[in-house]
């Protein structure tokens, strides 16, 4: 397997705000393991998420009963821990997605349109 290649390095604060929601979304596609989650996030353009960030987050999702995990045999290598979304996790994903979309819509309305000329400050006489 290859290392996920980061396309962009996003500010850490942005990633912190949305990472849990994105991981819930990756898990909603079906049971998967830690490194595959990291790869999927990188492919989606979120950049490299290290194991040291990802696993505590996955454990927290388990603690909150939003995900469940089980160890499965590997193909010749060591076994892998697969994570999957619980019913509570699916419900949480739906409600957080609605809230997140509403949030970014508010933020988007506040920002200048991309085709608008850059704002200029009036000259002082």
């Amino acid at each position, binding site marked *: *397997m290859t*290392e996920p290649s980061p396309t962009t390095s996003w500010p850490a604060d942005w990633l912190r705000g949305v990472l849990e929601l994105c991981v819930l979304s990756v898990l909603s596609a079906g049971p998967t*393991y*830690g*490194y595959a989650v*990291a790869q999927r996030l990188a492919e989606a353009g979120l950049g490299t998420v*290290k*194991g*040291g960030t990802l*696993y*505590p*987050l996955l*454990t*927290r999702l388990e*603690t909150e009963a939003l995900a469940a995990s089980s*160890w499965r045999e*590997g193909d*010749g*290598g*060591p*076994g*892998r*821990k697969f994570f999957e979304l619980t019913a509570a996790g699916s419900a949480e994903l739906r409600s957080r997605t609605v809230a997140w979309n509403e949030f970014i819509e508010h933020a988007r309305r506040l920002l200048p349109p991309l085709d608008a000329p850059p704002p200029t400050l009036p000259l002082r006489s």
Partner: protein
Amino acid sequence: MKILPPRRRHLMDAWRDTLTTELRMRLVRGDVIGDALADVDAYCADSGQTPDEAFGDPVAYAVAVAQSLPGTAQVPATRWWEGALQTAGTVLGVTFLLEGLDAAAHSGSGLTGSGTVALGSLLSAVLVVLVVVTVVALLPRLAARSPWLLGLGLALGMTAAVLPPVLWTAPAFSAPAWGLLTGGVLALAVWVPFLRPLQGATRDLVVDPRTGRESFTTPKVIGVLAWTLPAVLLVAAVLVVTLPAPR
């Protein structure tokens, strides 16, 4: 699985050792530590990274893991009153037993001979209980932040147990040898309700969830430590009975 060069293997083992120690100090259960280590192994096997590259500093990672776990992932901590009861029972039990044996062996009247408990012995019981209660109350913070302070606490406890009976030998009370021996056994009996949990704690092994086997070989010394008190008591009893009385 890839065969790692010796130096890389050594660094990986050192990283795993630090993570294990840091999680142990945060009272995380052995099977949960085994699970965290297996997570690291699996991720590193997939990514080809070292634990240091993928998970960063093992101390910071241990903090993040411990914070993400539910309360049930922790070893039940000793409550302060349990620590106080065990300590008081141990110090008083050992004192009464040894004084009782001394009286029975050297008074010339056997079990009816009179023995004396020094004021210093009672004071040491009180001091040791205070030290133990303080250490138990602060244990999670002490262990996580400063193992040196924890060591200092234990050293204070030992000093408090040994010095007062030597420095303050004035008698507190006298009793027949059989009474002291019975009192000693009863005082040591405070350990009985705690033996099963203690056995469970010494068996809290770090187990790899993939194989069901221990991730580390538990040093034999851990099993030996559980026998320290009975062994010391036995040696002291033999010395008290066989050595001539200092009178």
